[in-house]
């Protein structure tokens, strides 16, 4: 391993050593020799406000030691602005850090900054779908993808992408959330759209009636758009037929109960909440509370 302290091309720099308390250490990290070497030079470069190619290379090493250091990433961006370099190399670098540490906040923010600098979002859908292929629920990847889609209006193939994800795993809650987001920001919500999406959700509910994600979507698209369950006969029909088939799904019974409440049929709703206390016993107290609420109202 070569230390900066031994490199002739860095001879002009006096490294600034990391503070270390012998007598009163406080959360004192046992930094490696390499870490101390890299950061003592990083500190010196920052003090000089040097924005050079060698400074850029130094930030690469600093990021390798600690990819969560905001100050180093920010300094790297200052260097990139000063040097006005081609950003393709930077894109490759961020991609390699994302690949290695896909849950690191700083690298994703850096990627966003680079895209803003270049104005070129053309690789971002590929990057995020690549990251999501390893972890389909990576919050950072979804956040970045949604930012790119909104910013650059790249909606065209997105519903198709969601279909693929749900075919692979219909319990992928992130994909369901993404569907809401895409429709909200591209096609828009109206009664017809909600009706269509209810049938979409319904097809998945029938496949896996205990999947919270599809129920949250079905219920949410109605409620977030300030409508009533009764505005969509399909939903009540779906719930009724599943219930007649004795499908033991707490989400089904909860939805049916809420539909009965809208109808003013408190007796039926109370029965549902009664059954739920048995079926979904971990939430027994909540279902009892919902049941009692109806008595109080009556």
């Amino acid at each position, binding site marked *: 391993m070569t230390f900066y302290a031994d490199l002739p091309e860095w001879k002009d720099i006096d490294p600034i050593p990391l*503070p270390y308390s012998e007598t009163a250490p406080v959360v004192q990290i046992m*930094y490696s020799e390499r870490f101390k070497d890299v950061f003592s030079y990083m500190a010196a470069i920052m003090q000089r406000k040097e924005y050079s190619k060698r400074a850029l290379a130094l930030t690469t090493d600093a990021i390798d030691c600690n990819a969560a250091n905001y100050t180093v990433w920010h300094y790297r961006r200052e260097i990139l602005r000063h040097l006005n370099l081609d950003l393709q190399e930077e894109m490759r670098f961020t991609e390699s850090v994302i690949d290695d540490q896909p849950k690191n906040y700083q690298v994703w923010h850096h990627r966003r900054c680079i895209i803003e600098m270049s104005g070129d979002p053309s690789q971002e859908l590929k990057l995020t779908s690549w990251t999501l292929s390893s972890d389909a629920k990576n919050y950072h990847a979804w956040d970045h993808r949604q930012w790119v889609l909104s910013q650059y209006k790249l909606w065209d193939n997105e519903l198709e992408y969601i279909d693929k994800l749900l075919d692979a795993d219909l319990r992928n809650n992130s994909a369901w959330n993404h569907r809401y987001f895409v429709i909200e920001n591209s096609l828009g919500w109206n009664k017809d759209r909600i009706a269509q999406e209810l049938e979409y959700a319904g097809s998945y509910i029938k496949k896996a009636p205990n999947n919270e994600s599809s129920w*949250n979507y079905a219920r949410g698209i109605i409620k977030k758009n300030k409508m009533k369950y009764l505005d969509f006969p399909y939903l009540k029909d779906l719930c009724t037929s599943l219930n007649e088939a004795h499908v033991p799904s707490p989400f089904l019974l909860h939805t049916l109960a809420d539909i009965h409440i809208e109808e003013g049929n408190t007796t039926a709703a109370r029965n549902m909440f009664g059954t739920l206390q048995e079926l979904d016993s971990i939430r027994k107290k909540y279902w009892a509370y919902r049941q009692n609420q109806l008595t109080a109202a009556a």
Partner: protein
Amino acid sequence: MSTTEVQDSEVVEEQGKHESAPKKLLREKHKKYFKQMLTLLPEPFQAHDSSRLTLLYFSLSALDLLGAVDELISEKRKHELIAWIYSLQVKHDEEHGYSRCGFYATDSIPEKVDNNHGHIAMTYVALCSLIILGDDLSGVDRESIIQSLKVLQLSSGSFQCISYGTESDARFVYCAACISYFLKDWRGVDVKGAADFLFSIQSYEGGFAQNIGRESHGGSTFCSIAALHLMGKLEELPEDNKENLITWCLNRQQSGFNGRPNKPV
């Protein structure tokens, strides 16, 4: 692997673990561990150098919950810890104004380099830590911190964490609310703006996401509700929204709690 397969195999593993797991909290072992973590951290922690002040807070908070702060931390040691925390404070100066004010995470890049910026989450954990240690906060440059919050709040009502530009989300709104609450001074926060932002991040699922349109998540739900409560704005959450939130939160419990539907606990 699909979610169901993952969930099934995880359930079997969890059941196996439970058979041999201790039935009581191993208090003395935890106390010993966190006391050690106040002092020296092994080399792998260098990847967490930028969270060093947070690591201090975690250990202090754990000892506090275990009722062991006075038992395990002498007055002399408390002063050492307090002094270290204060050494990470950036105060107002002519050149930078209030933009860099607050506390930063680590002195690995020393003060004299003049490049350390306050980080809203470090300011939050610094204040928490000082309070746990019984400090009266008289060393806190309150005005600087309050003014720095103004710099960090965005037009959306949300907050970023450092003045030169970072990500922004519910975590930092929570930090801003806690800081203002501790210092009993809300001049640094546009409370209506922050509350409006938080109301806007409640998703169709009933939970709160990190940003608008994102997925409801346990962490951001906590941050949002806690911040709204501290700001005195929670009662403005409409009744239906509150019910949806409650349902979403309760549905997080499988055995323990997961953070999002169909994720492991």
